[in-house]
């Protein structure tokens, strides 16, 4: 089975190498992405069957755009001795390429070329299946709508619980607060700012600043949503964050492997979901350990980090005795040092 995955990844590089030989037009880029998309679709059965038998060897890296082989993100992977499944980076750009009226093609070309170069750096790892590319959409497409619905449901539950209110639906909550500005929302719900965490936001930021920080990360032009009310922006942000976390959880369940997440806000919202079963619980606990490992190892030079043969035991023991990520971090610091 692994041979088949490797064969697919070889074909992937053949497509990319062939593409790189030429001066390419917009249509050529579109064709390249179609070829990659269809190749990954054809590879899906092999990957799911392979992971059915080898899921304990792999992690799914989610919640960030690229995986960089040379940065510190590799450290927990090396430490755990695991291999890694990543969302194929070119396909993430397909929607933007298709909306070519709104995006400057030259800029898109630059981004795509840099994504290709980034992938070429991972070539060795892709060719021995230490890294496997997938298109996550192939795994969750049919349940996208349910994921969105669940994200809405959990958003209102989360808000109800933390703000001590009782709404049945997010729409009702939006309706009742639609005229309020960010400042007025802060005043009416002082805890609201404390429970919203966008990428790279800090506790000192105001509600509005956190939302804008989130737009920057997603590449959303804040000018385009200037007419959207403050509460709608807050709710959209929450739904987006819970949606992302639930998508990752769903992929983890389908692939039957733990998630490797490096972004604090993603792991936070992931932990808001209840466990589907014992296997899911184990995987999420391991995801927390991996997140903590990243916090402990992120300043280490990748060359200094080695595989720890006790990794499995460490995960088991931490899962039993620790209650929070801070506990994990403190325990792991002792082990690593």
């Amino acid at each position, binding site marked *: 089975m692994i041979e088949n995955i490797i064969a697919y990844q070889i074909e992937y590089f053949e497509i990319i190498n062939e593409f790189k030989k030429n001066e390419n037009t917009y249509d050529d880029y*579109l*064709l390249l992405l179609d070829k990659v998309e*269809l190749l990954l*679709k054809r590879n899906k059965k092999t990957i799911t069957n392979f992971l059915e038998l080898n899921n304990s060897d792999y992690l799914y890296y989610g919640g960030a755009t690229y995986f960089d082989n040379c940065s510190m993100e590799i450290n927990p992977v090396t430490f755990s001795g695991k291999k890694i499944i990543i969302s194929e980076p070119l396909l993430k750009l397909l929607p933007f390429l*298709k909306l070519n009226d709104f995006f400057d093609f030259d800029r898109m070309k630059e981004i795509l070329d840099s994504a290709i170069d980034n992938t070429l750096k991972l070539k060795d790892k892709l060719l021995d299946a230490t890294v496997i590319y997938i298109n996550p959409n192939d795994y969750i*497409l049919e349940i996208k709508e349910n994921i969105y619905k669940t994200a809405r449901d959990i958003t209102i539950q989360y808000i109800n619980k933390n703000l001590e209110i009782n709404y049945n639906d997010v729409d009702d909550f939006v309706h009742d607060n639609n005229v309020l500005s960010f400042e007025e929302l802060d005043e009416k719900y002082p805890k609201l700012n404390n429970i919203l965490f966008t990428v790279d936001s800090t506790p000192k930021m105001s509600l509005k600043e956190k939302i804008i920080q989130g737009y920057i990360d997603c590449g959303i032009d804040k000018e385009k949503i200037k007419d959207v009310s403050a509460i709608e922006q807050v709710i959209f942000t929450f739904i987006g964050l819970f949606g992302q976390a639930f998508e990752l959880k769903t992929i983890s369940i389908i692939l039957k492997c733990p998630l490797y997440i490096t972004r604090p806000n993603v792991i936070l919202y992931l932990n808001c979901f209840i466990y589907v079963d014992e296997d899911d619980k184990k995987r999420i606990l391991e995801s927390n350990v991996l997140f903590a490992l990243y916090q402990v190892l992120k300043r280490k030079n990748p060359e200094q980090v080695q595989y720890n043969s006790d990794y499995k035991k460490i995960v088991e023991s931490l899962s039993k005795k620790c209650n929070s990520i801070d506990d994990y971090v403190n325990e792991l610091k002792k082990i690593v040092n």
Partner: protein
Amino acid sequence: MKNSTIKQHKQIGKELIPPFMQEPIGSVMHLCSWSKERLPEYVWIGLLRDSCISKTEFFNKFYYLKQYMLQTFSEPCDKFSLILKLDSTKKEELYDKIKEIFGNNVLDPIIVVSNYDKETRKSFIDKSKSNNQRIDKLVDIIEKMYDRHSDFAMDVRYSALILKINKIYFPKQDMIIKDAIQKYPSTQKDDPLLDAYKISLSSMEGMDFFENNYEYSKYFYEEMYLMTDCKPKKLIYPENSNKELLIDKTKELKKLILKSEEIKADDKRDVIIGNITYVYKIVKEIIDNELYTSITSRLVLRTIVEIIINIKFLCSQEKDNPDIWKAFKDYGSSKYKMIYKRIEEGTTLSDNCTHFDEVILKLLANEIKSEEFLKVSFKDFADKNVRQKFIEADEKDLYDTYYDYDTCFSHGYWGAIRESSLLICDNPAHNYHSVADTECEQKLVNCCDDLIFLLDKIISIMNDEMGVK
């Protein structure tokens, strides 16, 4: 269509041959499947058909395309693989004509199964569509075309046929087919002639006159298989289990077995009580492990049926052959004898076989009499085949249903494998293939009532033959 009866089958040697397979047709007939071998080649026509609201609209448009194709191309190009082989200019011209008649992006979905053919992609691509939408559309078209007698499939097959019509010679007297070709497009659903036309056209379209090459179809289905998910469907049977009654029956059987211990031991008692205790134990295993809908339950049913027949047969023979109980024991012991002798004498290797102890086998084989006095018989203890024993025990129905069906499971015959271990995939793009049921989702019909029925028979034997009530 009414299927042939067993009586209409012809027995040749050890086979029953259905009427269609009988000579003289049988040996010359080549089965060529519409859905598996020809359909992919005509998905392009399916897409054209699907772009039109009505049959009339489609055939009005298709008429122009047909005229153009027959006038322009000397070589046949009804199949998509043949279109792909046209030189670039001709292909582009054809595509322009299709676009002119049917609309710009009409064949957009087919670009995912055209080997990235440049002209096809350039001519039909709809950039607003995703590959998932294209694939979904193809699956939809395959589904509509899959049943070769459906109205949609027939429109496509008719169109395929008329694209090669000037290459076919019709005998003058073959008027029905000529009528069908002329009138099919304008014949409406409620017209009684439609079915006759369909039959004529069907037989005609099925013949591959020019080329018998299904490489493209193979490629098409391989791609579609890999690019779409399986949709395994399991059969769900009503849960009408009489579990409590079965447990009561088992308790009753246990009571009778215990009562039988009061009877003086002899070979008959040993054999009957031994067999019935064996039944009791395997039924208990089914109950304790809740195996009512499992494959194991079928193996158990077969064993129980065979035990019932053995006992009934032995009882029926007892009068003429009082030693038959001994013969039954000797026959079984000699089976054990053969196994350990082979191992002892090194004619077989037992290292890999760990689920028995050869010493125990030897002890049991020598339990009644020394192996030196134990004949090894290569025939059954009663020198009868299984079916004969069922008939003589007046239980032919048990043979025809229980025994024959459950034997399929114990022998691993295809019917049992298909029923229990493979799920049907409901994705037409996968040709409704089978999917291995590795998650053990397919349950079989609950066997509780059958176990109760068989236990009742055993209880009757205890009453009648052992006098235990």
